[in-house]
């Protein structure tokens, strides 16, 4: 009910702040490895633990990844920028400040196209991640007797990508986040896993009466760790805010936490404790001067991006927009597809196989295309065996594909081992047809009388008798011949 009212009464305004963990080998300011599965506190050093007297040294790869992302999101790259200290106290932050960028972010004013609509990018800045808290004695914060801290994640490089408040619905927010994730993965700067926290989303939501231009008071939602939660959290926040506004109340600017179980947002920090981070320039790091030469060099390393492939695939391969969208979302899938076509496969057939049975297999086994055992050449071979009539489509799907994907055995070998080769030889097929005819005289009579529907029954019976290996075209031909004779 509430949602229906909103559609007529309020317009929702959404902005997203996305934190992306960068795929560097080491942390942003020290040589410690970035490794997510490690035992607690095994990847720490005096620098990331914030011990007195240590000095941070910036990881060059972090800057390169930030520039790369900025270029892909059509941003202006700052020629000059610096780092700042953001002060707050929390046990996951050993220095009691986070090194971030405040008034001079590395990238400014870009945009991203989502389903034909331009969503502005306000800024991208570099910063360090905090550690992880484990709450002993309770799985909830407030019931804990004490907390345990693992600082392995402390100092993991992050970029924060801040959108302009250009998003107008929860579906658009999801599309934006998915498009952004896809780009980050194409650039190979972040693995974009919301569930594991390598990509995290904070959502700013406000409402305003339809037709007005001034922004309403916003709330910030944290703890959104899937695309589904993103949609649900916005939906529940729209509902909550509209109820407050409808009853004559005012929205309080605050941070709210999304609770997965109840599907609602709850207040986390009230206005009185509003952020006062007392930023100042980081004295331990010198400024950055980014040369055009470096920017150009990074520009050259950017691969063809999904939105570019979306234009090329229909033109070059004759694919539908829908099929293209599925193939290009994941870079590995798109590259695999292109490899199969490059070897010489029919573009449409290759697309159908990848989108259909191959994807079904990957989903079932929860693996990525690059982790399956089938090489692009092997898929090409499978398709050409079908085209040459050596095996039929159905046998390929049910008998060959799983073995190819799971074990990487060549199609030729599988056909030999399982005796799957399609029978195109007229002799055995004729024999089988005759036997089926003899067993079903009534149906033969019907077919002779011109009831074509019965033909399907005969084809099915012959296939069954020959374990699905008969060439369907030959079976049809022989049935016709025997009926007419």
């Amino acid at each position, binding site marked *: 009910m509430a949602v229906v009212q909103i559609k007529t009464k309020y317009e929702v305004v959404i902005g997203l702040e996305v934190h992306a963990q960068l795929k560097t080998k080491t942390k942003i300011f020290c040589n410690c490895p970035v490794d997510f599965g490690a035992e607690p506190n095994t990847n720490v050093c005096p620098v990331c633990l914030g011990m007195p007297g240590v000095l941070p040294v910036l990881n060059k790869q972090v800057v390169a990844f930030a520039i790369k992302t900025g270029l892909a999101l059509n941003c202006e790259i700052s020629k000059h920028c610096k780092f700042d200290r953001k002060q707050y106290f929390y046990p996951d932050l050993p220095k009691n400040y986070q090194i971030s960028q405040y008034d001079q972010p590395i990238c400014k004013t870009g945009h991203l196209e989502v389903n034909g609509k331009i969503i502005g990018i306000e800024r991208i800045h570099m910063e360090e991640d905090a550690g992880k808290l484990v709450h002993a004695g309770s799985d909830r914060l407030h019931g804990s007797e004490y*907390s345990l801290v693992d600082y392995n994640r402390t100092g993991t490089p992050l970029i924060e990508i801040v959108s302009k408040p250009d998003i107008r619905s929860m579906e658009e927010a999801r599309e934006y986040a998915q498009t952004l994730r896809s780009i980050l993965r194409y650039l190979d700067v972040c693995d974009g896993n919301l569930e594991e926290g390598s990509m995290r989303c904070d959502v700013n939501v406000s409402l305003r009466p339809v037709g007005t231009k001034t922004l309403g008071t916003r709330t910030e939602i944290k703890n959104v760790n899937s695309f589904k939660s993103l949609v649900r959290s916005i939906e529940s926040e729209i509902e909550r805010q509209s109820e407050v506004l409808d009853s004559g109340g005012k929205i309080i600017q605050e941070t709210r936490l999304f609770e997965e179980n109840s599907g609602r947002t709850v207040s986390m920090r009230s206005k009185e404790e509003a952020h006062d981070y007392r930023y100042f320039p980081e004295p331990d790091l010198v400024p950055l001067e980014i040369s055009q030469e470096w920017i150009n060099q990074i520009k050259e390393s950017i691969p063809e991006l999904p939105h570019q492939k979306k234009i090329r695939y229909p033109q070059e391969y004759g694919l539908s927009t829908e099929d293209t969208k599925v193939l290009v979302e994941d870079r590995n899938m798109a590259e695999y597809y292109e490899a199969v076509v490059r070897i010489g496969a029919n573009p449409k057939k290759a697309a159908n196989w990848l989108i259909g049975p191959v994807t079904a297999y990957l989903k079932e086994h929860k693996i990525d295309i690059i982790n399956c055992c089938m090489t692009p050449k092997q898929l090409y071979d499978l398709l050409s065996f079908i085209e040459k009539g050596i095996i039929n489509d159905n046998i390929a799907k049910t008998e060959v594909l799983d073995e190819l994907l799971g074990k990487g055995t060549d199609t030729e070998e599988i056909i030999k081992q399982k005796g799957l080769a399609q029978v195109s030889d007229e002799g055995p097929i004729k024999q089988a047809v005759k036997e089926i005819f003899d067993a079903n005289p009534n149906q033969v009579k019907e077919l002779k009388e011109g009831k074509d529907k019965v033909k399907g029954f005969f084809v099915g019976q012959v296939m069954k008798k020959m374990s699905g290996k008969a060439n369907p075209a030959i079976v049809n031909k022989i049935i016709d011949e025997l009926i007419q004779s």
Partner: protein
Amino acid sequence: MITKEQVEHVAKLARLSLTEEEKELYSKQLSEILDYIDQLNEVKTEGIEPMTQPIPTVNVMREDIVKKQYNRDEMLKNAPHEEYGFFRVPKIGE
């Protein structure tokens, strides 16, 4: 002029508890410091970019190469309390 309320606010942010006398004292001292710094406003600075670093160096960066130099026991030595390889901290209240 730094008011007592401003001193209280800054003290709260820095997790410092101050006595009434200290609040009065710091309000006076901080005001004096700001007045002193205000002298800088007499210098004409039009057309000069703000400086964020006194050292005339830029772009100090390192390559992305792992070096593991410390083990956990060594790193936990400075912790007042530890448990199962974690740093143990008092419970977090709002």
